[in-house]
């Protein structure tokens, strides 16, 4: 290279310096814009995190978490309620069926009583006839005839009344048996249905509840990840300061090289030495510019990753869970209403059975009265028969017929006693029966429903809390969606910045080409310049103004001909040393 030969390269170098200054200015402007955008985005993510936290807090509220166990308890209480009634109804059906047999026995007893009443009636007629035949002697027996007649009438009336009640009772039992027989399978079906439905409800509620509790947490985690990435962008923005200084020092170095090339050397050897230094210096600047490109690429990538992360944050799942939970709440609420309806039906059902049993109790009362009357009749008959026998004996042979009648009365009296005993037995059996059915009816008492009522009330309260939490979550989800939308809009702005920064690469490449070309010119024109020079002197010359460790490492790599140190951008940021 002649004394003037360096001068044609001064202009490209000056142009390169100008270009780097322009890149620095443009980049600074864009970086400031990115910083503002991410500052705002950071506020948005804080807002999202707070909103998600409020949803999580409402879900974790004890009242809301208690929904599932309450529904489970309700299901168990409903099942127990129906099972009790099913068991009781089945028992009552059996009892009512057994009652038919008891009533049958009673009918037999009543029929016998009817027959006895007829016998007494016949005896009464006979006694009248005989008394009339005996004339004056038979006057005392008229009384016997009238008594027998009265007894017969009274017995016939009572017996007929009892028979009527018994028959009526049989008819009522028939109706009840049909009704209960129809009810039982329906109740069984209802029990199975309740079991299945409540089981389904629990499973669905469990699933939606898990989603309700896990979705906001997942959302919060994803937003927290974004918050971390934004922190990385904040670090990248700071790191630009290093890159800016690096660029400035490359500009300074190129300006220095241009100055050296434009100055006249004192001698050829001085020029030769200068060219070696210039060659080394150019190689250093190439290394520095490539390092700058790598750093830019690194934090542009960080910005893009963060942007993609923000765009991927979807609030749709968060928005979707509240309607799901509200649907489930409505399902379970309608389940409670269904159970209440079953309870009402059961009360109507139990009222019917109570009426039926009341009928039995009044029958028992009637039998009791009848037995009392029978005992009275028995005593009277006994007395009559004794009187008749005494009277008949006093008349001697004239009252043989009367005597026979009196003996008949004794027999009838014995028969009546036996029949009264049978009535007593029947009544005892029926009383036992009444006791058993009363015990079974316990299952339909109000106290047995208390557990179910408590479970229903507690479930309603829990569902109310769940509904409130879901409504709250829905409201917060709307805010989350709006905040998400705002962030996406901001991201669009940042995207444009990223594109502008991308274009810097092309501009840096253009500067690199210029420097590379100059380097090649030196290689061709002055091969001796490539043989190396005093590395310490070169280092001192070009690193005097360096302010970052990165630049020093890159310079050393350039002088040693080793690879450019990898851009070790720590987006976590450096720690603080306190003195």
């Amino acid at each position, binding site marked *: 290279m002649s004394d003037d030969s360096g001068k044609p390269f001064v202009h490209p170098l000056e142009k390169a310096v100008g270009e780097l200054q322009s890149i620095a200015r443009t980049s600074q402007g864009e970086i400031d814009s990115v910083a503002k955008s991410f500052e705002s985005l950071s506020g948005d993510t804080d807002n999202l995190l707070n909103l998600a936290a409020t949803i999580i807090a409402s879900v974790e509220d004890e009242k809301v978490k208690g929904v599932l166990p309450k529904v489970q308890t309700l299901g168990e209480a409903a099942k127990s309620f129906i099972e009790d009634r099913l068991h009781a109804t089945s028992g009552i059906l059996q009892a009512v069926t057994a009652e038919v047999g008891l009533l049958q026995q009673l009918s037999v007893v009543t029929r016998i009583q009817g027959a006895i009443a007829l016998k007494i009636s016949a005896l009464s007629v006979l006694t009248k006839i005989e008394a009339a035949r005996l004339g004056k002697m038979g006057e005392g027996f008229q009384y016997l005839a009238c008594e027998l007649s009265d007894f017969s009438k009274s017995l016939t009336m009572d017996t007929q009344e009892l028979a009527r009640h018994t028959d009526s009772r049989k008819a009522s039992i028939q109706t009840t048996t049909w009704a209960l027989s129809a009810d039982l399978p329906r109740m069984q079906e209802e029990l199975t249905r309740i079991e299945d439905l409540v089981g389904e409800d629990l499973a669905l509620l469990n699933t939606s509840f898990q989603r309700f509790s896990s979705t906001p947490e997942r959302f919060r985690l994803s937003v927290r990840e974004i918050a971390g990435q934004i922190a990385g962008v904040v670090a990248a923005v700071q790191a630009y300061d290093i890159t800016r200084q690096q660029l400035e020092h490359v500009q300074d170095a190129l300006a220095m090289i241009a100055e050296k090339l434009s100055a006249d050397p004192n001698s050829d050897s001085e020029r030769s030495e200068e060219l070696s230094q210039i060659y080394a210096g150019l190689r250093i600047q190439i290394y520095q510019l490539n390092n700058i490109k790598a750093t830019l690429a690194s934090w542009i990538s960080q910005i893009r990753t963060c942007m993609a992360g923000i765009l991927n944050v979807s609030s749709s799942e968060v928005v979707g869970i509240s309607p799901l939970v509200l649907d489930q709440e409505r399902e379970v609420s309608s389940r409670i209403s269904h159970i209440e309806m079953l309870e009402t039906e059961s009360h109507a059902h139990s009222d019917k059975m109570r009426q039926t049993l009341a009928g039995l109790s009044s029958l028992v009362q009637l039998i009791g009265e009848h037995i009392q009357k029978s005992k009275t009749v028995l005593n009277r008959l006994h007395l009559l028969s004794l009187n008749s026998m005494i009277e008949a004996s006093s008349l001697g042979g004239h009252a043989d017929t009367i005597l026979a009648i009196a003996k008949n009365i004794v027999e009838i009296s014995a028969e009546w006693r036996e029949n009264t005993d049978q009535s007593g037995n029947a009544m005892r059996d029926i009383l036992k029966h009444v006791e058993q059915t009363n015990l079974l009816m316990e299952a339909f008492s109000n106290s047995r429903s208390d557990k179910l009522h408590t479970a229903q009330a507690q479930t309603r309260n829990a569902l109310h809390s769940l509904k409130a939490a879901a409504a709250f979550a829905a409201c917060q989800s709307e805010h989350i969606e709006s905040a998400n939308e705002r962030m996406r809009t901001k991201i669009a702005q940042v995207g444009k910045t990223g594109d502008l920064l991308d274009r810097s690469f092309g501009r840096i490449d253009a500067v690199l080409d210029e420097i590379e070309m100059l380097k090649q010119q030196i290689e061709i024109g002055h091969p001796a310049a490539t043989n190396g020079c005093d590395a310490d002197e070169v280092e001192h010359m070009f690193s005097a103004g360096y302010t970052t460790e990165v630049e020093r490492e890159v310079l050393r790599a350039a002088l040693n001909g080793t690879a450019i140190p990898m851009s070790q951008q720590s987006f976590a940021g450096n720690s603080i040393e306190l*003195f």
Partner: protein
Amino acid sequence: MKQILTVDDSSSVRQMVSFTLRKAGYEVAEAVDGKDGLGKIGAGKFDLIITDLNMPTVDGIQLITAARKLQGYAFTPILMLTTESQAEKKDAGRKAGATGWIVKPFNGDQLVSVVQRLVK
């Protein structure tokens, strides 16, 4: 509310320091270089100062030295936030009166934690 001054000739760095510390509840004032910083220190009262090292006119070391002579600033925590990590620079900073040294980029959470500790 505690007042903090950040001094740096890079607007993006000032912005990030302000952003980080305002989120933590501090009031943050900004100075564009060492001369501006000294002016603000003299005019106001700050509980902590964060300054860059390499700035035109008045650099970080000069700022710390001058600030320590001002009334009320003998013990005020002053952190150096810089791209420099060489031992001799840190030594110079310590001798000038710096409380701590941070190599850019800083860790936001750590910065807040240290500031909270220093301005209690």
